[in-house]
């Protein structure tokens, strides 16, 4: 990786200013994902020491600073409580602990990585991203946006929900990108189903939610139909790791198992 200059920002305003001085300037999260992609950076602007490394739990929300590491996140009691632990689970199979003590949630989300386990699970929750200087956007809308991010992600805000979640990373070991990521969340009989690493980026299946949310009783047949809707409306592809056909089988199986697991008894 080439870095011309390293600058420790004295304030978020200064960081924002420097970021936009040159298209090859970048924000440093943990630098973990940055190293994987090995870009050529002009000025690397570090936000360390500006207070973006806190997790603050309020009555209704969990506010996570962008520089919180993945391990800090997965061990946090409020995060562990979300959906019965499915968010923490989606953090636990990202390489090893030595990596997760460096990689940050900000760097992970800003990267919009298709293979990201944590983005897949967060998509099923009410998650708002806060950017400096002045932007708030849902996680889903941010993922749909394109082009270089010219403002700075500072906080991730999760609405606390007393629901039940399910997460599955299909892979043989923790050291691979998932063949498929599946997350399901149910609260008040409303369902969110998201699939990632398809190999495409994580997506919510609104069609499946629309169908499932209308149902009075969640029967085997309803679950089967829901899974089929996901297959019919979401794109799955081939890559070296798996074929489209096998991915669809995985999607169907785990969407079904996920719904079963989170459905109210």
């Amino acid at each position, binding site marked *: 990786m080439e870095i011309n200059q390293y600058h420790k920002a004295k304030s978020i305003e200064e960081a924002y200013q420097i970021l936009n001085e040159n298209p090859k300037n970048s924000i440093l999260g943990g630098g973990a994902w940055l190293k994987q992609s090995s870009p050529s950076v002009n000025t690397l602007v*570090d936000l360390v020491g500006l207070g973006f490394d806190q997790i603050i739990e309020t009555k209704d929300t969990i506010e996570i600073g962008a520089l919180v590491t993945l*391990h800090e996140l997965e061990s946090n009691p409020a995060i562990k409580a979300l959906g019965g632990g499915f968010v923490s689970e989606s953090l636990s199979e990202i390489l*090893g*602990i*030595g990596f997760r*003590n*460096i990689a940050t949630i900000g760097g992970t989300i800003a990267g919009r990585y298709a293979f990201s386990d944590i983005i897949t699970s967060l998509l099923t929750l009410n998650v708002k991203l806060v950017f400096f200087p002045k932007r708030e956007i849902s996680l889903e809308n941010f993922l749909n946006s394109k082009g270089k991010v010219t403002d700075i992600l500072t906080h991730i805000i999760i609405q606390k929900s007393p629901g039940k979640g399910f997460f599955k990373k299909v892979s043989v070991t923790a*050291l691979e990108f998932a063949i498929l990521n599946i997350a399901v969340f149910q609260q008040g009989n409303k369902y969110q189903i998201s699939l990632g690493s398809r190999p495409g980026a994580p997506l919510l299946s609104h069609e499946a939610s629309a169908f499932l949310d209308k149902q009075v009783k969640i029967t085997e047949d309803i679950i089967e139909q829901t899974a089929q809707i996901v297959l019919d409306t979401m794109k799955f592809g081939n890559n070296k790791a798996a074929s489209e056909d096998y991915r669809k089988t995985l999607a169907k199986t785990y969407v079904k198992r996920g719904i079963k697991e989170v459905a109210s008894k």
Partner: protein
Amino acid sequence: MKVKFNLNGRNREFDVSENEYLLETLRNNHITSVKNGCNESTCGVCTVLMDGKPVLSCTLLSLRADGHKITTVDGLQKEVEEISHFFGEEGADQCGFCNTGMALTIYALKNEIENPTDDEIKDYIVGNLCRCTGYHAQFKAIKSYLEVKK
């Protein structure tokens, strides 16, 4: 650029370049106990402790170590000797290349999780790859060590 951090109990100052990682800085300064296995964040042999937490030194920019406490096995001799005893008992030390990184991770595990389950132990050390042992003897050694340190 200059970076200042506490290395194994001593305050040190190093001259590093912007894109230099802690692994290189340490090995260039004669800390050969930290190994380079892949330089791509995937094998774990370069693990060091930053403020007691295991981090991949190949993935931590040296400038990011500024103000922190970095520990290698050279700064934890007594504790690592103890861990090595259990590895020796189980025949879990073969080529040894993964051992220094592994020892630091085990030490951090002991401090971070009280009474870890088998799964919690494995989740914690999964990023420390080993190609020689098949992990079984290592796991038994780690469990024996954690038993004794309860």
